[in-house]
C-alpha cells in the first residue's frame, strides 16, 4: 500500500517546553481526516485534533498542510501527495489562534470578535410580525442576496489564512464580515442594526483587508469573504462614512475611471492622503531617469461610449457613491489643457489616428462609435 509521512505538530503545554514534530507513516487513502484517525487508532492515541461530522458540515477539522489551510475531511490524501510531489506533509494547527494542544486551537477569540459585528438578525417590527402565528413574507429573489454567506460553518479556515488578521490584532476576520454582511442585505433586519454593523465593521478593520483573496481560496463552503468586505465597504461609503482613506480611494476610482477610462496614480496620494508632494517627487524622480511622465492618461477612442455604459449601470444599480461631475469636469479640463483640445475632440482625434496608423477601418467598422464614423 502506498504510504506517505505526516510530520505532525505536537505540543502539550502541560508537558512540552516547546512544540515538536512527530513523523507518522500513513496510507495514501481516503481523506486527511482518515489519515489522522488512522494515526490515533493505530499508531498513537495521544495525538489530539478535532473532528466530528467527518463529512464537511461541522467545521471542526481544519488544519494546515505545509502551511496551507485545509479542511481535513474534504482533502483527499492522493491530492496532497500529488500537490506536494511525494514530499513529507507537515501538519500544523490553524494559524492566528493559540494552540491548546497539538492540532487543537482556541477558537473563542474569533467567535468573540465575530460577536462584535452583531451576527444575528435584529428583526424590524415593520417587516417581521411580532405575533408568532404570522409568517413574514420573503421572496426567493431576496434570499439570493445572502445565499453564499449563510454557508459559513465557522471552521475558521479563513481566519487562519487571513493576511489582515496576521497584521492587525483588531481585525475581526473574514468570516465575521461575511456573517455581518448576510444581515446587512436581509430586509427583515432593522436599519439601526445595519448602521451599527457598519460602524463596528469599520472599527473592526474593514479597511485593513488587503484583498488577497486567500479567504475565498480556503473556504470549504464557497463563502466569499473578500467580496463581502468589498460590499460592506460600499455600504459604509454609501452610509456616509467617507472620511477614511479607502472611501477617498474609491471616489478616485469612480471619478477617474469614468472621466478617462483609467485611474491616475500620480493623483492618488493627493486625493487620498492630501499629499501633494508625492506627485511632484515621483515626477521628478522619473524625469531624472529620463522617463516621460504623462500627467493624465490619454483618452482613447471608445471613451464616450464607455462613459455611457458606465452611467447607465450606475443609474440602474445600488451604488456606494454618486459620480462627482464637478470632479469629472476638472479632470476633463486637465485633459484638454494638456492635450490642447476639449475631450470630445481628443477622442475624435484618437479615432482618426487609429485609422491612419493601422488602416483597420474595414475590420473595425461597426465597432467604432462616434460622430465621424
Amino acid at each position, binding site marked *: 500500500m502506498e504510504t506517505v509521512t505526516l510530520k505532525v505538530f505536537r505540543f502539550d503545554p502541560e508537558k512540552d517546553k516547546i512544540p515538536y514534530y512527530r513523523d507518522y507513516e500513513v496510507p495514501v487513502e481516503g481523506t486527511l481526516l482518515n489519515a489522522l484517525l488512522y494515526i490515533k487508532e493505530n499508531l498513537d492515541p495521544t495525538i489530539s485534533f478535532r473532528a466530528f461530522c467527518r463529512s464537511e458540515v461541522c467545521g471542526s477539522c481544519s488544519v494546515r498542510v*505545509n502551511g496551507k489551510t485545509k479542511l481535513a475531511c474534504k482533502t483527499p490524501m492522493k491530492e496532497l501527495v500529488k*500537490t506536494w*510531489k511525494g514530499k513529507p506533509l507537515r501538519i500544523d494547527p490553524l494559524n492566528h489562534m493559540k494552540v491548546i494542544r497539538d492540532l487543537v486551537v482556541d477558537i473563542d477569540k474569533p467567535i468573540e470578535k465575530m460577536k462584535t459585528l452583531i451576527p444575528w438578525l435584529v428583526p424590524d417590527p415593520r417587516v417581521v410580525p411580532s405575533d408568532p402565528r404570522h409568517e413574514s413574507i420573503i421572496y426567493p429573489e431576496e434570499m439570493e442576496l445572502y445565499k453564499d454567506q449563510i454557508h459559513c460553518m465557522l471552521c475558521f479556515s479563513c481566519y487562519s489564512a487571513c*493576511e*489582515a488578521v496576521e*497584521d*492587525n490584532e483588531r481585525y475581526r476576520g473574514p468570516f465575521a464580515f461575511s456573517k455581518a454582511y448576510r444581515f446587512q442585505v436581509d430586509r427583515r433586519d432593522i436599519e439601526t442594526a445595519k448602521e451599527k454593523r457598519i460602524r463596528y465593521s469599520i472599527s473592526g478593520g474593514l479597511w*485593513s483587508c*488587503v*484583498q488577497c*483573496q*486567500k479567504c*475565498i*481560496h480556503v473556504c470549504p463552503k464557497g463563502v*466569499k469573504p473578500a*467580496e463581502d468586505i*468589498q460590499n460592506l*465597504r*460600499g455600504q459604509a*461609503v454609501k452610509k456616509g462614512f467617507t472620511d477614511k*482613506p*479607502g472611501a477617498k*480611494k*474609491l471616489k478616485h*476610482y*469612480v471619478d477617474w*475611471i469614468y472621466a478617462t*477610462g*483609467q*485611474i491616475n*496614480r*500620480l493623483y*492618488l496620494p493627493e486625493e*487620498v492622503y492630501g499629499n501633494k508632494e508625492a506627485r511632484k517627487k*515621483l*515626477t521628478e*524622480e*522619473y524625469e531624472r531617469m529620463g*522617463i*516621460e*511622465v504623462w*500627467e*493624465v*492618461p*490619454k483618452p*482613447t477612442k*471608445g471613451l464616450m*461610449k*464607455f462613459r*455611457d*455604459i*458606465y452611467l447607465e*449601470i450606475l443609474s440602474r*444599480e*445600488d*451604488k*456606494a457613491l454618486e459620480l462627482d461631475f464637478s470632479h469629472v469636469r476638472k479632470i476633463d479640463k486637465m485633459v484638454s489643457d494638456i492635450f490642447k483640445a476639449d475631450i470630445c475632440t481628443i477622442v475624435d482625434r484618437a479615432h482618426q489616428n487609429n485609422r491612419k496608423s493601422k488602416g483597420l477601418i474595414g475590420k*473595425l467598422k461597426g*465597432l467604432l*462609435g462616434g460622430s465621424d464614423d
Partner: protein
Amino acid sequence: MIKVGFYQGCCFQGQDAHMFETMKEVFRMIDVELELLEETTCCGGNTIDEENRKLSYAINARNIALAEAKGLDMLISCNTCYMVIAKAKNALDNNKKLRDEINELLKEEGLEYRGTNKIYHLLDFFRDVVGYDRIRKAVKRPLKGWKVGAYYGCHVLYPKHTAIDDGDNPSSLQEVLKALGAEVIDDYEAKDTCCGYHAFFTDKTMTMKKLNRILGSVKKAGVDIVATPCPLCFKSFDIYQLQMENPPMVPSAFLPELMAYAFGLDKRKSGLGHHLIEVKKE
C-alpha cells in the same frame, strides 16, 4: 508567430508607457506578437466592485469583447487585472441574465461579449502557449549567479476558480526563472505573504507590515532580487518600499524585465535601469 491581444490596464501607460515597448520586444523574441487592445479601460482595480459589482462586470465584459471583436485571446500581465477580468468572465459565462443585460449595453458600441476567447496571465501563457523551451532558446545572457526570489503575488493563485496555477504549491514562475538561467529561491518564509499593494490607500500600515515581512524574509534568504509577474507587486516593492521606516533596499523586478535582460536587452531598455531601488546585479 502567435498573435495575442494585450490588455494594458493602468500599468503600461503614462510614466510606465515605456514598459509596453519592452514587453513587445520580449514577446517578439519568443515569437509572440502583442496587439495592444487600445480601447480597453482600467479593469476597476478590484475597487470599482465596492461601488457596484455589476459595473465591474460591465467594464470588463467590454474589455473582453474588444479582444473578441478582433478574434484574439487576451493576455493580461497584471495579477489583479487578471483576477478581476477572470471573475467577470466567470460571472458572465455562468449567468445568462447578466450576460444579456450587459450585452444590451455593449450593443451601442457594436460590441458583444460572447465568451469565445481565452484570457491569459503571463504565467499560464508562458506555460501553456509559449512553452519554457522557447524562452530558454531566446536567452542570450543567462542570469547565471543571480539569486532570484520567486514572488507570485496573490491574484494569480487565489481564489481557486480563477487561479492559473496550484495555489498551494505553484511552479510556473520558478520554471520561467529557471529558463532564464537564474538560481531560484522559492522557499523563503514570507513567500506567500501578500505584497500589501491594495491596502496602501485603505490602511497604509498594512502595506508597510507586509513589505517588512516579505523583504525581510527575502533578504534573510540572501536573494539578489525579487521577481514578480505582477506589476502591482513590483510597484509595492519598488515604490512603497521606500516609505518604510528603514527600507531594506531590496531590488525587485517585474518578470518581463528580467526576461528582456536575459534576452540581451540592456539594463535601460529592459526596464531594470528605471527602478527607484537600483538593480546593481549584472
